Structure formats: C-alpha cells, structure tokens
C-alpha cells in the first residue's frame, strides 16, 4: 500500500498485476483461519479423526475379512480375539466389520441431515433477517415452536409419524436442526444488512435476490460452517439414538445405534457387543465437536494467530 496512490496521478506507470494464485487475497482469510486451526491441537486431532473415519468409510468395507451380516450361530457372542477383533454378536456376526461397514452410514446420516436442515434453516433465517417485519415474526415464532421441543423428542415424534427408516431419520434430524441454523443466520443477516454496502447495492438498484446471495450470504459463512460441524455431531447422536430405539435403521443394517441396542440385552455376559459401537459413536461425535470448537476459535477475529 504505497502512499503515492493517495494522490491523483494520471501519469503513473502500470505495474503488472501479480499472477501468482497463492497471493490471491481472496484466499487470505481462509489461510489465516487454517493457520490458526493448525495451532489448535484438539481441533487437529478432531480433524484427523474425521479424516480417518472418512477413509475407513470409503475403503474399509473392501478390506474386512467378514461380511457384516453373515451369521455364524456357532460363534455367537465371542469375546474379542485375534480372529474377531471386536468379538461377535448374538448372531455370530463379526462386530469389527459391522462397525467398519456402519461408518459410512453414520457419516452420511450426519452429513445429509445437516445439509438438509442447514439449507432450509439458512433460507428461512436469511429471509426473516433481511425482510424483517411480519415475515420475520412468523418465521421466528415457528422456529421458537420447534426449539421448544428437545431435539431428540421432536425427531422421535417426526419419525413416529413418518415411519421408521434411515431416510426418515435424516428428515427428522434435519427438521430438528432447522431452528438452530435459522437463528444463527438471522442474527448474522441482521448485522450484515445494516452495513452501508448493502445500502449502496440498494441505491444501485440491485434486486433482493442479488443482495441476499451475492452480498449477505458470502459474508455470513463462518458461523454457518462452525454450526454445521458441531451439528453433524448432534445429528449423528440423534440418529443413533433413534436407531437405538428401533425407529431408525432396521436390522440387519449395521447402524451403530441399532448395534448398541442389540447389545444391551447381553450387557452382563457379553458387554463388548454394546461397548464397541458405543465407543465408535463417542469417537465420531467427539471428533466433530473438537473440530467445530476449533473452527469457532479460528474464525473468531479476536483470537490471535
């Protein structure tokens, strides 16, 4: 930022603009966020775990020695051994390969329910925040109603109505996460909306859609990313909870919550049946929470690098 540029100087020679894409300032903010994130140990551990789970979900199913639903009643309720790393369940199925096969399912349920819930929530929040007035009141009162129910209870009610299946679990969990996104997005929209550059766009005659999608949304992404990461953890937990109650994935799907539910009958004589799916759920949820918290700090301009 040279000082000479402050003067009206029409005879200035033209410097070639820097073509190096790494110096593109548009990515500068992201680079700062990433640098802060790298220094946050728990966030990095969480991130690596998530990466690990994603890799397991993709290539794991090809590497397991046992199919997830091959029954072997002779070998039922085996304790962990060299042959069955996590033991076998009451049908003699290998718990290790069932957990591996269930990883993708768990991640997809978490991802899609948040994607669906966030999309609807963002739209409602941005519309409410931008237009204000009666539109805002109606949307937000409706969100308050949704928020009044505990998330899992609401999801439970929805699944009961829709019927128990994995897709319905995704829908139910998505609906219960709508108000969280709507609130956060509305708040951010309100603060961005009153900035002068929005008025400048209005003065230029820009349409509401253009202002919302080109000028408001790109400036409120950081809280959304943080919330989405944290919400994936909640969504996975809710989905497992619903499957545990028998309302989600149906047998013999190797869903972790459903496996946990199967295992609870043998808690005394074969605790490993419930233990390993339980640990898997804890690990994934913890990983997303750790990354989410780290992201929140990294996006916060007040935290130092």
């Amino acid at each position: 930022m040279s000082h000479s540029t402050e003067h009206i100087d029409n005879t200035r020679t033209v410097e070639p603009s820097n073509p190096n894409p790494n110096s593109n300032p548009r990515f500068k903010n992201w680079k700062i966020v990433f640098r802060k994130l790298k220094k946050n140990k728990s966030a990095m551990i969480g991130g690596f775990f998530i990466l690990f789970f994603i890799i397991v979900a993709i290539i794991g199913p090809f590497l397991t020695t046992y199919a997830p639903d091959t029954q072997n009643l002779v070998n039922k309720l085996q304790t962990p051994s060299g042959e069955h790393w996590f033991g076998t369940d009451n049908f003699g199925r290998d718990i290790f390969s069932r957990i591996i096969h269930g990883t993708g399912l768990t991640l997809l349920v978490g991802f899609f329910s948040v994607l669906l819930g966030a999309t609807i929530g963002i739209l409602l929040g941005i519309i409410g925040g931008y237009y204000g007035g009666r539109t805002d009141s109606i949307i937000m009162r409706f969100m308050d109603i949704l928020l009044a129910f505990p998330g899992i209870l609401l999801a439970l009610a929805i699944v009961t109505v829709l019927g128990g299946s994995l897709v319905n679990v995704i829908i139910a969990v998505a609906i219960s996460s709508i108000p969280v996104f709507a609130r956060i997005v509305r708040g951010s929209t309100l603060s961005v909306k009153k900035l002068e550059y929005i008025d400048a766009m209005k003065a230029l005659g820009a349409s509401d859609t253009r202002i919302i999608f080109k000028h408001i949304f790109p400036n409120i992404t950081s809280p959304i990313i943080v919330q989405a990461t944290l919400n994936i953890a909640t969504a996975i937990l809710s989905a497992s909870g619903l499957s545990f109650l028998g309302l989600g994935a149906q047998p013999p799907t190797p869903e972790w919550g459903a496996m946990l539910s199967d295992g609870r009958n043998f808690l005394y004589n074969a605790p490993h049946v419930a233990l390993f799916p339980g640990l898997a759920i804890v690990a994934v949820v913890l990983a997303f929470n750790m990354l989410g918290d780290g992201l929140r700090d990294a996006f916060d301009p007040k935290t130092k690098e």
Partner: protein
Amino acid sequence: MQKQKELLKVTDLKQHFPIKGGILGRTVNHVKAVDGVTFTVYEGETLSIVGESGCGKSTTGRAILRLDEPTSGEVEFDGNNLLAYNKKEMNKVRKDMQIIFQDPYASINPRHTVRQILTEAMEIQNSVPKSERNDRVLELMQTVGLGPHQADRMPHEFSGGQRQRIGIARALSVNPQLIIADEAVSALDVSIQAQVINLLKKLQRDFNLTYLFISHDLGVVRHISDRIIVMYLGKIVEIADKKSLFNNHMHPYTQALLSAIPSTDVEKKRERIILKGDVPSPIDPPKGCRFHTRCPFATDLCRTETPELRSADSMLDGHMAACHYMEEIKSGEHEPTVV
C-alpha cells in the same frame, strides 16, 4: 446567479420512524427524524445540508433515494415524482442518483475486488455494454486516482481514503446526474479529506454532477458548497447561498453553529455562543419553534407558534430563515431574554 434547471425538488418531506412497544408490538410513538422539509437542488450545484447529529440530515438523503421509505411528502427528480414509482421503476432511475457513504470500511463489500465491485454496478444498471466494462473499470479507477494495477485487489488492501475513492468510482460507474454525499469525508484524516474534496470538485466539473452534500463539518461545507441548508431537529432553520450564510446569517441557531468553527486567527477575538442543554428528543419535539428550548432570544410567541421559512429585506434572493425575530435580532432591537 442565472436561473438554473431544477434537478431535485423535495416538498414537505417527512420521515417518521415508528417506535414499537408493549406486548403486542404496536406502534406507540414516532421518531420524527425529518418533519416537513422543502428545498430544491439545481443542476450542477452543490447544496449542503448541515446540522448536528440527529437533526435528520442523513435521513433526508436516505429518504430521497428511498433507502428508507419516507412517511409523506414529495420527491421530484427531473420532473418525476419518485415516491409514486414502484420498485421496478425506481430501480431504473437509480442510475441517475447515487450515494457516497461515510464509512469507507463498511461501504464496500469486503469480499469483492475493485473490478468486481465496479463491474457489478454496471451490470445491475446495464449502463455499459458487457464488452466495454473492463475498459470502463480501468478508466473509472484512473478518474478517481487509483491505478489499473489495483483492479484485482481486495478492499482490505486499501487505505480509508482509497476505499472512499472506490466508493466514488462505484457511484460514478452508472453515470449519475445527482450524487448524495452522506458525510462522505467525515471519517477521513484531514489531509485525505482535502484530497477527496478536491477530487469531488474535479469530478463535478468534468461530469457536470450535482451534489447534495451532507455534513456536520462547516469547514468542509464552506469549501465545497454553493448553497447551504441548516437543519435543526428535523426542520430547515435557514437556507442560503454560501456567502450569505457565512456573512449575513439570520437564525440564532445558525449563528451559534457558525461560532463553533475554530479560527486560525489568534488575534481575532471570536464570540463563542454556547448553547445550553441538549437537543430535545425528536420523539416529542418542542411546540412552536423547535429551537426555543435553547434559544437565548426565545419569547412566548416562540413557544407557541411555529415560524415559517421566510425572507426579509436585508436578505438576498433565495435566502430564507425560520425565526419570528430575525430582523429584530439582527438590528439589535431584540435582546436576549435569558442571560
């Protein structure tokens, strides 16, 4: 001054913001930010609006552009009543009237490069054919004193003064006739202020622009204006050409306001008029003359009857003030009632 074309005519403009209260969120009262303002802006001139914070000067500018929908009144631009337009028609005429904002840090989208900012403005109004937009961006940047090598930089790489130039370039990109400068230089350093003001003056000459210059800084206003409006609590108290306002002001408020300008002449003794109390609330403005609560000359008449804008013998054409006693105060017949 020869008779000029009326570009913008504001008649009895009112902007009352509702205050919501109670459980039901009903409107319990109004903030009367602008309460009946009438003035005309002639083509090619710079008309300034001055007044202290909260007097409604910015609100007036925003209401003219319909950034906030005014409560009532008439805004005629080039002979057409803007308030009768629907949103689509309004967006079409927006290319003729632009605004420059006060805060150079909030007035441009932090995620867009200068090129994107300027191109988008042309795209919205379709003021420049697509193939020529790139050249026009560089031309505009040169016009406001930025280099073409800075076209792909982000706002945070610029200083406040440079950002303000970007804001000016954006306003110019649609070839407007009228530019409302809402405290356009107030957030800048004094040295940068002078540069931006000189730039604005140069642009006015080059492109035959008309300015409605909103400011609280009388020094700046004195430098740039042709005519000046003084506002107090949502109403115009005095309107005059620059010379008359500074040398032959009639309203006691204008006098107090002008006495606040710092002087560089140490020898010259200035008579500083310090007004007592605060500006009354625009929710429930005083009856009669709005200035009576702080005016040293106020009488019972001031407390009951609202003075209209009027001219007097000693005043030049177009010079008007709203005071019952302006002639008497000027001649010294009417002494201050409170000491």
